[in-house]
């Protein structure tokens, strides 16, 4: 085993729940000591002494552990550790404490739709509509989402951002006529992190939009 050594210390990178019902953790392996190295994730749940092992190493992709609904308790601290083992020995990450309520980061909203409205009795406006991300259960009230949109003429650098509250539509009133606009939307749970921005949608503002 010349030149070989026990594995370096792995590190837990991030844990995230997209809808406060399941969650996934990702880790970064340490050095493998030049040998095939095996990784396991073990955890304790608050108020219990049993040590569990990761229920699903596949769903979240490489170096990840996915906790489905059955394995996810809300309002309970998970004490999580990654263990690396090879023929020369093993090493463990520092313990990582997770409470699901503090790691909620939804997927972006979907079906972003744009429409220029030119009513007779009022000034024209750009009507922006979207739907919540599919995974999130809004109907039961388990999660409440707030939204933010941003838009800009295609060639400019600076985005104009608007907080839309809990609505899934927004009207923007002052726009340049004859320009192509790019629009994106993102969402945040009542308590948690902003999602990424949705893919861009675009629309041409007619030249008579004054």
């Amino acid at each position, binding site marked *: 085993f010349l030149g070989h050594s026990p594995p370096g210390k792995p590190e837990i990178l991030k844990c995230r729940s997209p809808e406060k019902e399941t969650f996934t953790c990702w880790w970064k392996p340490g050095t493998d000591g030049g040998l095939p190295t095996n990784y396991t994730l073990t955890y304790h749940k608050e108020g219990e002494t049993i040590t569990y092992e990761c229920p699903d190493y596949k769903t979240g992709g490489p170096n990840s552990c996915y906790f489905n609904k059955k394995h996810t308790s809300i309002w*309970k601290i998970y004490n999580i550790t990654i263990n690396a083992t090879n023929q020369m020995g093993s090493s463990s990450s520092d313990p990582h404490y997770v409470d699901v309520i503090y790691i909620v980061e939804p997927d972006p909203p979907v079906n972003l739709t744009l429409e220029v409205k030119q009513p007779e009795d009022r000034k024209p406006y750009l009507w922006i509509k979207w739907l919540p991300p599919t995974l999130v259960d809004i109907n039961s009230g*388990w999660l409440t989402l707030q939204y933010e949109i941003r838009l800009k003429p295609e060639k400019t650098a600076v985005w104009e951002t608007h907080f839309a509250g809990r609505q899934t539509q927004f009207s923007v009133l002052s726009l340049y006529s004859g320009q192509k606009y790019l629009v994106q939307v993102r969402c945040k749970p009542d308590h948690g992190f902003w999602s990424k921005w949705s893919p861009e949608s675009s629309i041409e503002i007619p030249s008579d939009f004054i």
Partner: protein
Amino acid sequence: PVCPRGSVRCQVSLPDLFDRAVMLSHYIHSLSSDMFHEFNKQYALGRGFIPRAINSCHTSSISTPEDKEQAQQIHHGDLLNLVLTMLRSWNDPLDHLASEVHSLPKAPSALLTKATEVKEQNERLLEGIEKIVDQVHPGAKENKAYSVWSGLPSLQTADENTRLFAFYNLFRCLSRDSHKIDSYLKLLKCRIVYNNNC
């Protein structure tokens, strides 16, 4: 108009009561979460409080649903009573927290104002939930249950580490319980008022 002339029962409607309760519970959790993170940043980093704090809230004895399915299986009357019990269990500690926070070394003013604000809003939410229970369960036997808090001595002890841990644990439990109350009320609102179609 609030009470159209000749209206027989002039009262705040159940949907309005729930809207206000949910806005208040959301606001209380936002404040509690801010306080927990502010306290953590200023007083708790590196003191290894997390493992010590596990499972030590004065409300741990109150059996509460641990996920969405469990919460949805509970009868709404029982879930409302659970919320009442939790809110009442926080009246006393919040009273003391609002006064004891001043004793923290260089206590940030934001922490002081939020501690007082949470105490007042908790009392307000309790009044609202009692009103909701009246409307949802008129004549139901009044539930006066609550979990006793006996943490005052450790909030006032001279030993700094014990005292900071006591504050840490109180802020952590408040953040957790206020999140539970907020989640349960949002579920109840969608179930009772919007027939699970929020």
